[in-house]
Structures are given as C-alpha cells and as structure tokens.
C-alpha cells in the first residue's frame, strides 16, 4: 500500500518516453516547431513566461514553452534555472516612466489627460465570439498601429513620449509622494529575510504568478478589507523602454537594448487608515505602480493595485492586515508561481515514512492509553 514507486526496470525512462510520445491521447509535440513562430502565434503566452521568469528573451521563453508542452509553470522553471547559472554583468540604470515610448495609453481616471489617450493595439472591445471557422484566427486583421487615435490628442502628434497622467495631481498635492520609496533590490541574489522593503515587493509582483496575483487583486477590488473607495486606474501605458547601463570605462550611460513593457498606476482613496487609534488621518490618494514585461495588461493592473494597497496600509501596525491584499508578507510567500506549483506538486513524491509517523500518532491517540492531563476550567480560560 505504501510501497515506493521504484526505479528498478527503467521506469523513469519509460515514463519520459511516454510523455514525449504524447501518450496517444493528445497531439504529439513535433519537437522544434520553431520557437520563432510560437512567439508570433502566442505572444501573450511568451510575455507571461518572460514576466514570471524575470528573464526577458522571447526566443528563450518560446523554446521553454515548447519544451514544457505549454505548461507555463514548467516553462518558467526551465527559464529561471537557465538564468540562475548565467553570470550577472551589472545592473541597468533607472528608467523613468516618461522614457516609455508609448504605443498605447489609456487614462480611465482622466477624460482629457495632457497628451491625449491612445488606444493602440487592443482586443478589449472585440466581442468574445469563438470563431470556429477560421483556421488561424491570429491572421484576422487586428487594430493596426495607427488605429484608435484619440481625437483629443494634439493634431498630428506622433505617439511617443508622454507625461504621466498623475503628475498634475501630484503637483497639486492630492496624491501622496511615492511611499515608501522603492530601492531596487534583486531577491534572486539576496538572502531572504526581514525588511527588504517596497523594492523587493515590487520585484516579487513583477515576477508573480499571473493568476495568483490577479486573484488576490480581485479580492481587494471587490472590497475585501474595506479601506474606503474603489481603486481608480490612473493610467495604463504600453510601449518600449530603453535599457541603459553605465559604460564601464567612460562612466557614461548608453542604451544596450529596448524592451516591451506595460505599466499601470492605480490611485486609492486615502493614503493611510491612520495609526492604531485612528488619530492620524491622511486623506490624499495613494498611488500604486505596476510594471510587467510584454503586454499582458492584467499583470500590470493587478500589481499596481496591490502595491497601492500595501503602500496605503504600511502605516498600520505590523501584522494587523486583515486580508491578503493588504498583507505584503503574505503575498511575498504566496504569489511566486514556482514556489507554489513546486510545493503543491511535491505531494506526488513518496511520503510513506512521514505518513507512517502520522499513522502511529493517530492510532496511539485512538488507543487512548494515557489519560488526559487534568485540566481545570480555570487553567483553560
């Protein structure tokens, strides 16, 4: 009953061969179908794997997806393990939000932001009708790069660099300054521990599992934890940013490449619920920031919302968060897809030694040989 599945007759090899043959029940993966075409056919899937891996190289992500039969968790695992053995040459310089060369910009909070809105490429308003006739729906004409220009935008403006929509409100003082200030920190090369702050949290959100992060954000958006008022998406923008590094000899910044990102800024009404006795009230907006590689927009929106929730509750006494969406520590533990999927799936491993230890306890208690300690009501109260 509790016998270990043993590797006595090449069972591991046979299992791998079965998996690679497709087990007869699903289409055979035909090996290298060409990661480039996969990246073109399923760009958002590639974006997701790049984002959750924290490694931005579409061809690698596409190859990993293929090798993992489309299992995003396994693909991320492949890419991250690959990246873990690569040397780190340095760090990039800070990229400003306004460096983003915009191909899409919407500002749900503001009807007429400076610079205008620019719908760009989006399927948001395409009816969700399953098309069973077309062999390849990806060839259906989508919005082109010059469609959807907001009429309010200046005549003839080329979508490029825009000011942040929240900037005027920050100048007016109704949005609190970013708080706490995020210092860049790489959790993958830094020992875990206490007090890594907002920079570490933002990195965790940038790499968080898409579904998990969306689920937690959802619980907050639907009102769990209260705190006054709906979140408002100030701005969502997509486009490309330059990656600049410092030249090792001249010390001058230079661009080594560009990457596609989507950024979101979400405003929450009320910066802080105040200190423990509610004597402090700060009624400004709290702004949260979310950034993701690629164009999977819900990742950026969810991250910006969760950043805002955590920033808003950062003045609360430690450990008093009532719901996950306010609880930075909980999210740091729960939202990494690799940690979650790995540990849940480890239950497939043999556990007969620990289970037999459990059995011993359950049987011993059932046998009831030892009388319970006397326990008076007084002691127990």
């Amino acid at each position: 009953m509790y016998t270990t599945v043993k590797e006595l007759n090449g069972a591991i090899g046979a299992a791998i061969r079965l998996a690679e043959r497709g087990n007869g029940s699903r289409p055979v993966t035909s090996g290298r179908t060409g990661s480039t075409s996969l990246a073109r056919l399923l760009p958002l899937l590639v974006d997701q794997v790049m984002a959750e891996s924290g490694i931005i190289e579409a061809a690698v992500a596409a190859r990993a997806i293929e090798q993992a039969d489309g299992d995003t968790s396994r693909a991320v695992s492949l890419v991250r393990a690959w990246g873990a053995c690569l040397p780190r040459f340095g760090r990039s310089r800070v990229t400003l939000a306004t460096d983003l060369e915009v191909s899409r910009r919407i500002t749900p909070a503001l009807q007429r932001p400076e610079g205008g809105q620019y719908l760009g490429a989006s399927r948001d308003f395409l009816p969700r009708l399953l098309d069973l006739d077309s062999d390849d729906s990806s060839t259906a004409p989508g919005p082109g790069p010059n469609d959807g220009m907001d009429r309010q935008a200046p005549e003839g403006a080329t979508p490029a660099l825009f000011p942040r929509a929240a900037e005027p409100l920050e100048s007016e003082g109704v949005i609190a300054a970013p708080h706490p200030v995020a210092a860049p920190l790489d959790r993958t090369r830094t020992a875990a521990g206490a007090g890594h702050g907002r920079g570490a949290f933002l990195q965790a959100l940038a790499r968080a599992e898409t579904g998990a992060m969306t689920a937690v954000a959802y619980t907050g958006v639907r009102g769990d934890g209260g705190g006054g008022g709906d979140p408002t998406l100030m701005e969502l923008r997509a486009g490309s940013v330059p990656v600049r590094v410092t030249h090792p000899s001249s010390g001058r910044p230079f661009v080594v490449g560009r990457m596609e990102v989507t950024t979101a800024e979400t405003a929450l009404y009320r910066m802080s619920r105040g200190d423990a006795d509610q004597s402090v009230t700060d009624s400004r907006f709290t702004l949260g920031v979310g950034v993701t590689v690629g164009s999977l927009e819900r990742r950026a929106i969810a991250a910006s919302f969760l950043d805002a929730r955590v920033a808003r509750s950062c003045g609360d006494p430690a450990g008093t968060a009532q719901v996950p969406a306010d609880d930075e520590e909980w999210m740091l533990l729960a939202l990494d897809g690799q940690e979650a999927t790995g540990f849940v799936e480890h239950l497939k491993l043999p556990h007969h030694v620990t289970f037999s230890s459990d059995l011993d306890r359950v049987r011993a208690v059932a046998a009831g040989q030892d009388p319970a300690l006397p326990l008076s009501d007084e002691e127990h109260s």
Partner: protein
Amino acid sequence: MTALQGLVDSSRPTGQAGYSFAYLPDDAKREVRRALLKAVCIPGHQVPFASREMPVARGWGSGGLQVTLSVVEPDDTVKVIDQGDDDSHNAVALRELVGGTTGVTTTTDAREATLIQTRHRVPEDALQEEALLVFQVPIADPLRTVDPRPSVTRRLHGEGDYSAVWLYLYEDHARLGRSSFAHSYPCQVEGGYVMTPSPIPRYDVARLDGAPFVALFGAGREATVYAVPPYTEVKPLAFDDRPFEPEAFDQPCWRCRSDASYRVEETVGEEIRLVCSDTDWCRRRAGGRRP
C-alpha cells in the same frame, strides 16, 4: 537568434555536460557555503540564503541539492535516498543529477558514503565522523505551526520565546493524552534554538542527538539552511512527566526480521507487512535479496 546563441554559449563554461563542476556557478556555491558556515556556528539557527532556481522544482529537493552541490568534492562518495530508499524515482533522479554534474562515485551503501542527501530519514547504519548528511527540508520553521508569519517567528526565535510551542504541546496532552507531533518533531538544539529536524520520523530524532556526523539542512523554496554540528545535543521538546515517544512497531521487519529499525507498511494481498524503510540496510541484513 544570434543574441540568443551568444547567451547560450556564454552560459556554457568548461565542465561536464556543459556546466560547472557540480552544476552551480562558483558565486552560488560561495553563497551557500557562507550560509552553511554560519549555520554550523549557530546550531539550529535558520540562516537565510539566496536560493537559486535549480533544474528541479521548488519543493522537490532544491535546497538539499544546493547544499550537496555546494559542498561536494571530486573524491566524495555520494548516496541519495528518499524515504530511506535508494531506488525511489526522486532519489534516482537526484543521484543522477549529482553524479552526472560531478562525476563522483555514487553508492547505496551508507557505510561507504561520505555525503548522503536524504529525504526524511537518517540511515540505519551507525554513521561516523566522516559522513556529511544533507537533509531536504520542506518547512524550515518549527514555529510555523503557531504563527505563519516569518516576521513574527523570527522575533520569537531571536527572543528564545518558545512558549507557544510548549503551550501547543500542553494542549495536545490535555486533549489527546499525547503529543500530536508526528514527524518534524520540534527539538531544542544545545539548549538554544528550536528547530524542525526536517520531517524525519521521531525515531530518527533521537538518533541526531550527540551524533558524530555533520547534519546540514537545506530548504530551497524557503531559502534557508541550518545545521547540527557533530556531538551536539538535539533534545525533542517534552515535559518531564510526559516523555518523548518515538514511533512504536508491533512487528519486526517482514524481510530482515529487525525489530530495531524504522518500519513502514506494505500491503500484499490481504496482508499488511512491516518492512524497513532503509532498503539498502535491510537488503544487506536479509542476505542481499532485493526488496
């Protein structure tokens, strides 16, 4: 694809199968070894480290593997067991990974091994000072049971405040007549930190106490290592009048007739048999018959 090829090529240092000796890059090994040194100096203390993503899933031995690959040397003889069994799929896969990236000799005989990576057992053989035991740890913090927040349990460990575990233990005795801790029994190390001895059974906990070997614990998902140096007291938490109870077995091993080993159940037809979980040890006692 040219940029990609450059990246791929640069990730291939000289060494077996395209990777460094023992897979991990040197800076990763240095990180783990530093943490281990600290862990050995502060027995039972959970030392955080920058856990790398390994070519196995988180929760599948990634911590034990990082420890093993950081300390293994070319002349080591390595044994890998899962639940005491060398032939378990997981043990085989990890052994092949360690062997394949180092070229070291592997063995199933605990007496020959200088480095043993284990999931949840201490081998039955009496291990000596030469042996290094590396435990795979799923949950590194014994206080998780009483508080899920690391910020809280770190403080409790720092203050030596283990009252919540003692209370838990007291309530067990009051309600159940016994401690409900099965495996992962909380232990105090040399009168200091309370640690979870990975989920080894209670039978093995007693065998860690004052043991001559170095015990290293690696939790990859939780990015923590800790250690018990040789000849260190490992004392399971228990009240004076409610002694610690290892697992009890009502039959000897069906194969080797041992009545002093840790045994697990095996169902054959209608019959439930008890057999040793340390398969190599049992096989030797039973005269080489394969379990």
